[in-house]
């Protein structure tokens, strides 16, 4: 590591505007050299005041230095400039989690996942916070799709920002993948809306996808949510559409109850 620090420091001396300060600050931070990391981050910020990744690094260093309120302000500033910044959502989520505000922590972690659904550390953090949240909730949330045929295979209600609201989806080997699917569905919906707009297809009504190992149906139960129903290939698309219709009605009932 010392060699890495030396090499990056030399690069920074040679080219003070180099972005290598981001990695150098991170390496120093991870090594516990908080003061050195802070100096590197602040020097970098002088050169690149608009670089949100530099602000994100600085905020993490502030957390290491126990200056939590300052870190919160920095991350909030990052999110004003870039509302989808994954690092800032993870950071703010962590601060909420530390304070015991699990709902707010989950909100930010889900937004972090929506920014990059392939980031495994976000998935792990989300699962960890969700496990804690489930252990402290005495009453299970009402299952909007209880009694639906094959409900465990995949009926998932999500919001337009890619956050799971109710239901579940199982991926390969029966793994719970609702958070990943929810994040991907936000991207699918944005693409559908753009496609419908540019090809003059009008308002989108539904999407059917027949895939190698299953069929899926996506509909908007209301303006703010999406419903994803997945079944094995042996359920034809037409029957899947009927099932999705009934699930949509159940989703609307559940959503209305949440608004009351």
């Amino acid at each position, binding site marked *: 590591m010392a060699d890495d620090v030396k090499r990056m420091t030399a690069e920074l001396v040679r080219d003070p*505007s180099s972005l290598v300060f981001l990695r150098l600050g991170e390496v120093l931070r991870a090594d516990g050299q908080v003061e050195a990391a802070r100096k590197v981050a602040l020097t970098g910020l002088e050169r*690149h005041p*608009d670089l949100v*990744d530099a*602000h994100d690094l600085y905020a993490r260093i502030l957390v290491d230095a126990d200056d939590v309120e300052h870190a919160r302000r920095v991350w909030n500033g990052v999110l004003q*400039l*870039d509302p989808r910044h994954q690092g800032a959502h993870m950071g703010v989520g962590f601060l909420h989690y530390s304070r015991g505000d699990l709902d707010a922590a989950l909100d930010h972690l889900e937004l972090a996942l929506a920014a990059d659904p392939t980031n495994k550390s976000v998935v792990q953090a989300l699962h960890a916070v969700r496990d804690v949240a489930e252990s402290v909730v005495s009453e299970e949330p009402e299952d909007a799709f209880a009694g639906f045929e094959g409900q465990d295979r995949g009926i998932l209600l999500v919001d337009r920002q890619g956050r799971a609201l109710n239901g579940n989806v199982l991926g390969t080997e029966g793994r719970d993948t609702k958070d990943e699917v929810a994040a991907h569905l936000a991207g699918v919906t944005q693409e559908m809306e753009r496609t419908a707009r540019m090809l003059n297809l009008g308002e989108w009504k539904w999407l059917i996808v027949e895939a190698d190992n299953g069929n899926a149906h996506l509909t908007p139960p209301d303006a703010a949510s999406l419903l994803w129903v997945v079944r094995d290939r042996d359920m034809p698309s037409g029957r899947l559409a009927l099932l999705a219709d009934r699930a949509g009605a159940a989703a609307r009932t559940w959503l209305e109850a949440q608004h009351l």
Partner: protein
Amino acid sequence: MTRTYAVDPWVEKPLATFVDEAGARLALLMTPAGQVIAQHGFTRAVDVMAAAALGAGIVASTGEVAKLLDEPLFSVLNHQGERHGILLGGFDTPRGRMVCLAVYGPESSPGIVQLFFEEFSRDVRDACPAPEAPKQVLAADFERELNESLSALFRT
């Protein structure tokens, strides 16, 4: 942070829309001579200048190939690599020909970038004000204008 900066403010909105819709990571709008009009995603002036010079070089080279083939100017050139692709496209505006260099990742595609490049070129043409009267360029003015352009492109 990745932001869109332009020497002329009327370019900012079309370029920001193009970057957003096409999923471009870096974008540069310039004249065929390599003079930068707007940029998105670059954090260092030296990178902008290098990209503009290389882009202008490619435009000049393909222009010569087009001449050899007795073809009109090529409008779009698209290269797709393993992790990144680049689009280099030219279009005419009331202020003369402009060239766009866009770098995109695997989350986008040549088709998407090309589609929104067409929209972008139309938006720029629509937003472009009438050409200014030509003025004499002195060496000192040139240096001052270059510095002003760099300031605008990086908000320094």
